[in-house]
């Protein structure tokens, strides 16, 4: 099925999210052409089945040897031990005792070879499932989820990124999908800026201003609708919704005891905010934990960083499991690459894309599974080697999206998932 360009403004475009749903929307084809005005019953059913995504991004490149694929007692193993998990026979680093208790919810990919050791290119590859090439930019998974999974009527942005960095809207990740599917970044987990109506503007004044805006906007859209104007309108509408639902972003509304459970550090607070956003129905939430780029004193830094990750992540996974939300939420823990098995002169590990690991959980994933294997000291993949393209296909399958979908951009088809790769069937339930 071909899609029109985002800028065309056709009715087909307005229904594209639903049409693009594979298994979820298999019975909704009849709704094509109805736009957002699907029958309430169908809409309710879809809401119940809505897929969500949680990505935990370990920025800088977390060491697979200090997380998912430890090699204790070898020349590359470092100082740490491995520990048993809730899955017999699967051992992970002793730095993750809480995650070890959640292992029955997790699947590991230990045969990842992305052949990429550059931060920027690794970041792009792991978010888009392809190597970075000049001349074309593909959308990130978050933007794909925002466009094809998020209900058109959702009052909240489809793609929210909780980051230690700065906040604000960014369209870059959306690429040719269009700017309205970009990310809303919550800098240090803070609510979006300027979401409180000025005190000088009362209800009456706000209504009058809105009426004028709506009239002008409708008139303009009838004649000159473009991707940019649509994005502007969408952003304005979303801003109003955000103002009305500002409390969704206020993590301080969570119970005090949960701050202790998740950890009284930034990452713990960010994971708790992620739970709140997922509970509120946000389709795609990414939490970035920084920083794992440990060229120096890798072990001390991983001791601190992975300790924070373990508490926040394991608690969030436990809560998602207990609430049932994990049944329709895909969880991905990844980095731009792993770290060298060889320990450098400064007790550091350097960039390493040749043999590393990621973790998955939730909807569509075979929990407790381990796919792929590295050799005794972790220097090479020896079984079931996969790349970022295979992972991307797997994510889309798990979300019920059609991996063969393409988007028509100015007459040229662009496949959302790299056609040269396929999904990893052992990972999918």
């Amino acid at each position, binding site marked *: 099925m071909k899609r029109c360009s985002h800028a065309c403004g056709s009715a087909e475009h307005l229904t594209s999210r639903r049409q693009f749903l594979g298994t979820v929307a298999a019975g909704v084809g009849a709704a094509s052409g109805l736009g957002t005005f699907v029958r309430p019953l169908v809409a309710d059913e879809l809401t119940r089945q809505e897929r969500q995504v949680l990505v935990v991004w370990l920025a800088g490149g977390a060491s697979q040897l200090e997380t998912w694929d430890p090699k204790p007692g070898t020349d590359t193993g470092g100082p740490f031990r491995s520990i048993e998990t809730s899955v017999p026979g699967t051992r992970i680093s002793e730095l993750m005792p809480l995650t070890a208790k959640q292992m029955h919810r997790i699947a590991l990919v230990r045969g990842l070879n992305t052949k990429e050791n550059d931060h920027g290119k690794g970041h792009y590859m792991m978010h888009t499932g392809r190597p970075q090439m000049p001349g074309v930019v593909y959308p990130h998974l978050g933007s794909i989820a925002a466009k094809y999974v998020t209900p058109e009527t959702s009052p909240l942005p489809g793609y929210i990124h909780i980051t230690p960095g700065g906040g604000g809207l960014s369209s870059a990740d959306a690429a040719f999908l269009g700017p309205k599917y970009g990310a809303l970044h919550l800098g240090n987990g803070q609510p979006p800026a300027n979401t409180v109506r000025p005190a000088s503007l009362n209800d009456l004044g706000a209504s009058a201003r809105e009426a004028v805006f709506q009239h002008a906007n409708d008139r303009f859209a009838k004649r000159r609708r473009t991707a940019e104007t649509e994005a502007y309108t969408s952003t304005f509408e979303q801003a109003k919704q955000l103002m009305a639902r500002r409390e969704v972003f206020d993590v301080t509304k969570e119970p005090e005891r949960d701050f202790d459970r998740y950890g009284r550090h930034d990452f713990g607070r960010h994971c708790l905010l992620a739970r709140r956003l997922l509970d509120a129905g946000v389709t795609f939430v990414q939490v970035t934990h920084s*920083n794992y780029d440990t*060229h120096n004193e890798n072990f001390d830094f991983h*001791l601190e960083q992975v300790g924070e990750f373990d508490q926040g992540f394991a608690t969030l996974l436990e809560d998602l499991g207990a609430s049932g939300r994990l049944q329709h939420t895909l969880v991905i823990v990844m980095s731009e690459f792993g770290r060298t098995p060889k320990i450098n002169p400064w007790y550091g590990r350097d960039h390493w894309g040749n043999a590393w690991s990621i973790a998955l959980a939730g909807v569509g994933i075979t929990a407790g599974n381990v796919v792929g294997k590295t050799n005794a000291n972790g220097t090479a993949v020896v079984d079931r080697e996969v790349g970022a393209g295979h992972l991307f296909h797997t994510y889309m399958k798990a979300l019920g999206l059609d991996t063969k979908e393409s988007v028509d951009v100015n007459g040229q088809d662009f496949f959302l998932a790299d056609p040269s790769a396929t999904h990893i069937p052992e990972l999918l339930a």
Partner: protein
Amino acid sequence: MTSVDGPAVGPEKAFILRELTHKQPLIACRFAPAHPFVFATSEDRNVLRWDLNSASADPVAFSGHDGWVFALNFTDGGQSLLTGGADGVLTWWPLAADGPMPSRSIQAHGGWLRSIAVAADGHAIATAGNDRIVRLWSPSGEKLMELPGHERPIYSLAWGPDGTLVSGDLKGVVIEWDHRAGKEARRFDAAKLYKYEGGQGVDYGGVREMAFSADGKYLACAGLIEASNPLGAVSNPAVLLFDRAEGKENGPLLQRSKEDVKGVGWGLRFHPGGFIVLVAGGTGGGNLWFFKPGETNEFARFKLPNTARGLDLHADGLRVATTHHDGKLRITALHAKPA
């Protein structure tokens, strides 16, 4: 300056006396006080013993720890070796045995055991590490006391000549303990050796090792300053020297190299001649720096062939041992080469 017995001490004329080689990178080292041995720990989890009186280059391996070994010391009049590391286990070994086996092991800490210090009179062994608690043990391994107070991992311990115990942590908090009463006596602020790097979101630095002067007047702390890029190994080695006279706790002298040579001050010793020996390693390579109390910069420097990680000073005052990433334990003489 003269040694206890032998040639005149002269760090300016230092040279490498001997290299002992292992197949894996080395971490920490110690000269045995009552035997002609030098010990080192390795990234292969072993503790290695070389006989300095033997021409053999092959070390005897002490195997048993389930993780890297970070700390070495001696008890029982120098007849027993104490080791501790990433498994949190404190182990006693008969150090002169041909086929060494642990004589005792106790789970001393949760997480890494980073430092072992033995009181000068041998009555107590202090250990500390990532669980932030200083623990005192009898020479035979009975727990005597716990000293909580640190809020971050403890990196180093030292006993003073007057029986004072100090502990230093990641954030540069140095606590002097009244260990007989089981409480803090006072604190020294070594926060200059710590940095939170906000852009990278990491804590870095800490009091890597401490040493008292022979008269107890000074407490020297090894570490690093100017950590502009902790994850990228960009920092400079430094010593923070405290005058322990009352009222001077917060006015330490920061000692550093004249040149900008990157690295971390991993270890230091007070030489009987009154000066400080600091070993540093990092992107600037391995170096021995020699500082006098009261002076900001070194009076001598000796460049080592490979980045360095650990240091010990022999009781004769003429030799220092250093451990290196290239698997070598180097013995450097602190005097002129014989003619």
